[in-house]
């Protein structure tokens, strides 16, 4: 050994010294870098959306919401935007997100869950969530924001505010979600002002600026509406209202700088998504099929309420909001539909499940603009 060492030439000894140094360095790196061995991998969440994430309105507010929630919870966000409905593109998006290791995927368009039913079932290890009604697959849960609570308060505001007792409602097309919003709005308006009329003008599209503008004109000039609200993906309605000088209640868009803006029905999407992500991280997301996230979680707001509505209206709306957390549900009986059929009897409350998918009727007092 000794001889061997002495026979090593000088360069050899340097090499030895270098190797030992590397070895020591490696050992130290191993010791100090041991945290790398922590098996808590970063969770990844996939997000699939119809439009572009930078498009103002629906797309951007959802993206900002889930992004904020992910940042709060330290979760990585994977986005698939411009995923068209009815083309199978959503399945492709799910597969690519699965390949990237997403543990949860949020389907952020109304038509996705039904379209992706097979694909969702093919990934039982991934938790799916959506804001829309979902197919009967164990690993997908619908998480509904109780937007209708905001509508209800907005309706009450409009009912208190209207002079003509005609409130215009520009709506894209009927579905359970649309109908419960419309009904909640109507109930709010009618309970605040039993003389109020809610006139609905269908556009037949989620985005159609011309049609929306046209509807606003019709509602104002033909029906005599002095307050307009809407459910569309774009902002054509408030723009039209501003042009016409008509008060409006906006949805999902904060337009407090518009002179004729009364209030905004908003969903705090960050709270909504944080709630969902927490359920996912705690492993209980898919434990129940339908999840409601409402005003008591702080997710739904009637925001930017204009000072023009006056103190009385303000107090009234605040009282209604408080009632919603107690035993004063929106859909408490008696409620009749447009045909006079008793839908909810006195001493009864409409079950959340019925709100979800079986709402194909309209509260008495809702009218439709003739075409």
């Amino acid at each position, binding site marked *: 050994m000794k001889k061997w060492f002495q026979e090593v030439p000088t360069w050899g000894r340097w090499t030895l010294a270098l190797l030992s140094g590397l070895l020591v360095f490696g050992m130290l790196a191993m010791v100090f870098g041991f945290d790398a061995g922590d098996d808590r991998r970063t969770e990844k969440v996939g997000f699939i959306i119809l439009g572009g994430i930078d498009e103002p309105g629906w797309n951007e507010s959802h993206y900002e919401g889930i992004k904020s929630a992910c940042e709060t919870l*330290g979760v990585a966000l994977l986005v698939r935007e411009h995923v068209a409905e009815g083309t199978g593109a959503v399945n492709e998006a799910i597969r690519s997100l699965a390949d990237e290791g997403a543990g949860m995927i949020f389907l952020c368009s109304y038509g996705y869950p039904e379209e992706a039913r097979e694909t969702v079932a093919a990934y039982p290890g991934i938790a799916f969530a959506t804001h829309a009604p979902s197919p009967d697959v164990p690993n997908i849960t619908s998480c509904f924001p109780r937007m209708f609570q905001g509508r209800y308060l907005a309706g009450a505001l409009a009912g208190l505010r209207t002079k003509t007792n005609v409130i215009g409602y520009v709506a894209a097309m009927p579905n359970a979600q649309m109908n419960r919003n419309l009904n909640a709005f109507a109930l709010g308006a009618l309970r605040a002002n039993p003389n109020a009329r809610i006139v609905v003008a269908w556009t037949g599209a989620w985005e159609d600026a011309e049609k929306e503008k046209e509807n606003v004109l019709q509602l104002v000039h033909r029906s005599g509406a002095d307050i307009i609200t809407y459910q569309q993906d774009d902002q054509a309605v408030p723009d039209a209202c501003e042009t016409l000088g008509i008060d409006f209640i906006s949805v999902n868009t904060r337009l407090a700088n518009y002179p004729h803006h009364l209030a905004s029905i908003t969903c705090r999407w960050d709270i909504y998504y944080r709630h969902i992500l927490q359920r996912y991280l705690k492993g209980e997301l898919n434990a129940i099929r339908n999840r409601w996230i409402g005003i008591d979680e702080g997710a739904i707001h009637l925001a930017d309420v204009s000072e023009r509505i006056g103190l009385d209206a303000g107090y009234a709306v605040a009282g209604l909001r408080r009632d919603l957390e107690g035993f004063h549900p929106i859909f408490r009986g008696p409620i009749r539909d447009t045909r006079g059929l008793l839908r909810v009897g006195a001493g009864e409350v409409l079950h959340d499940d019925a709100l979800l998918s079986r709402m194909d009727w309209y509260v008495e007092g809702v009218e439709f603009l003739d075409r």
Partner: protein
Amino acid sequence: MTVKKHHDPFLKIAAEFLALVIALGICAIFMQHKISALLNMTMEQNVARQTASMAVLAESQFRQELMVLHNSMKFLETHPGAEDEMIAGLAQARGGAAVGILAVDGTPAYGAPLPASKFRRLPHAVLGHDVVDYAEGQGLLFAIPLRSGDNVRGVLWRLYNGEQAVQLFNLAEYHADRKFLLVSHDGQVIIPYRNYDEEDEAFFADPSVTAAYEKIRDGLASAPAAAFYTESRKGRVFLFGADLPETNCTLIGFVPWEAVAGGIARIYTLVLRSGALLLLLIALTSVYLFIVQAKAEESDALRREKEFSDRASQAKSAFLANMSHEIRTPINAILGMNEMILREVERPSIREYAQSISRAGESLLSIINDILDFSKIESGKLEIFESEYQLSRLLKNVVAMIQPKADAKGLEFHIHIDEDLPDALLGDMMRVQQVVINILTNAVKYTPDGEVNFFVMNEKREENRIYLSFVVNDTGIGIKEEDQKKLFRDFERLDQEKNRNIEGTGLGLAITSMLLDLMGGTISLKSIYGEGSTFTIIVPQTIMEDSPIGNLTERMSEASVHAEQYVPSFTAPDASILVVDDNEMNLLVVKGLLKQTKIHIDTCMSGPECLERLAERGYDLILLDHMMPNMDGVETLHRAENLPNAKDTPFIMLTANAISGAKDAFLKEGFAAYISKPIDSVLLEATLVKYLPTDKIRPGPADEETTEPTAAGSEADDAEKQDTGDLDIEQGMKYNGGMEDMYKVVLGMFIKLRPDKQKQMKEHLDAEDWKNYATMLHALKSTSMTIGGQKCSDAAKELELAGKKCFAEDATEDEKQEAAWFIRSHHERTMALYDKLAQDAERWLNKNDGS
């Protein structure tokens, strides 16, 4: 050579080791910390997972309760109006829990009253959801919606107060060492564990515990369960928590560290111990490596020093070899001429002087030889040449060498030689002789008075091998014990102060010891300081013939100690040899040494001249000098070999180039033998006997002729004195040691060289080159004197003095001019005397040549 000073290697190693131990220690502390943290983290995760499963258990208990309510609802659907009956049943089934039905506006419809507003989650039941809710002061509430188609018409509930809840939902039974509590999200204890007391309350209120639960709360925001290690009043514990889904309840608790760690704790200890062992191992290995490295560095330094000293030693050897060569050449001349003086002069006083010269010269030569031997041995070039020799001759030589020295110091020199020793041996006689002489010389040198005893004995015999034992015992100064080891080292001389006036190089014993090593012999020493020393040399030699040496001691003591009159060992009047040397003196020496052998000797002074002679006639033998200008001895030999006259002639190399290996080189070139200068007359004669044709050699001296030179000299003295002119034959003969032949040779040279010399003198005179002029005149003064030309010598002396004055530094310009004038006016006259002397000499030579 001084060894470069290093730091104390021990200190260095200790410092390196300390640094390493500190580094390792820090590493170890970090590692221990890491391991412990990792272990706790792993256990935290483990506890969290277990907690999650406990939460599931708790949740399932809750579900069970809700299931009971659902079943009751189904009962109601099939039995409308049986509300009171059912409520009573439910209340009974669970030890007095409150049961009732609420209307959708929160007012009691059936059964017990309920402060519905206290339960914040209860309104969800109205919307169609199952509810588990806890309200402080109220208890744990379970509620389900009562359906009527798509609508909810009421809420069925059951409420457990604190005590009832503990009994129904106690989870502690599942894990003996764990304590579980069910708390609400705002921290109210819903279901404590058994024996939950003030101390436990204090424990959960403990700041460290509260802080830990804060962390657990944070963790629960994004995980089903969380656990945290902390040290509290209950020792090392893991705190844990898990939210129960769809309730405002959280399962929390703690478990002692030991209960979780269990066997892992032992693994932890094991890891720590093995880590410590590993560190120890590393430390020990490092120490080992440090030591090895220190040694390697040391040996590096030593190697460098050795390389350096080797180079120095080689340079030294080369220098010594060179110098010895330069010195040997003149000594050759001195000893050669001196030998002739001894042979030819009878006047005792002159013989004595010559003997002194001889002794001094030989002493000088032996020093040179010592140096040369040493340089050869050091460079590993010394070889042992074995040949057959007679031990008797060796011993005679030794005694002849030592006896006079001992006599001179007045020491008694006793010789004891074993008569049974074989005489004919094979070995390197010269080296054995050298070794023995060395020891004896030392003995004589270092013995101020008393005696020196010399024993030659047979140490042991193995077949044809004999181990000769030479023992030298003296009554000298002796050697101190501590000095005895140093004795055989290079240049080591003991007692420097005391022995300052003792001559020698200090190499003698070193060489002796090295030579003995080369020959496989040994030397040993016994000495008592102040009383004397005994050196014992044992040399193995091969026996050639087993004839005993006989009583040599007697024979030798009979022999005269006085220098013997030289007697040639043989004569060969018919033989003729050629001696080639560029140095006239060397030629003279060889001729002189061989004069009495009657060999006919021709001489020439260069290689080409030698070849010319050989072209004319053949010789029986040729002695050829090595170093000659233009054509050296080796080249001359190669050219001569092509000549028909020289084809079979033995060439013998004469050289002062005595460096090791030279002999072999010459023999390889084609020389028959090799004689180193200064020429040893005995060796020269022996070599000639060996190489001259045997038929031309007659053993012994030519008796009738031995006295001839002296007789002839005196005859000439008487008969031819008047006819010699300026030449004083008597004086000339005196200067030439009384050897007429020698004298004649010198005269011949004087005559022969004259024209050249005169020409050169004239040239120097014309060029006013006084320095060379004076030198030449000085030579003329000396040579004239040597041949007996007093007149010419005197004249030359005057001119020499004048010449010297011409370039003397202290001479004035006037003096110089006067001297130059003197030279010019006297030069011709002196040259005339030179001419006359040469003519007289030639005349005398012609007259005496015939006789």
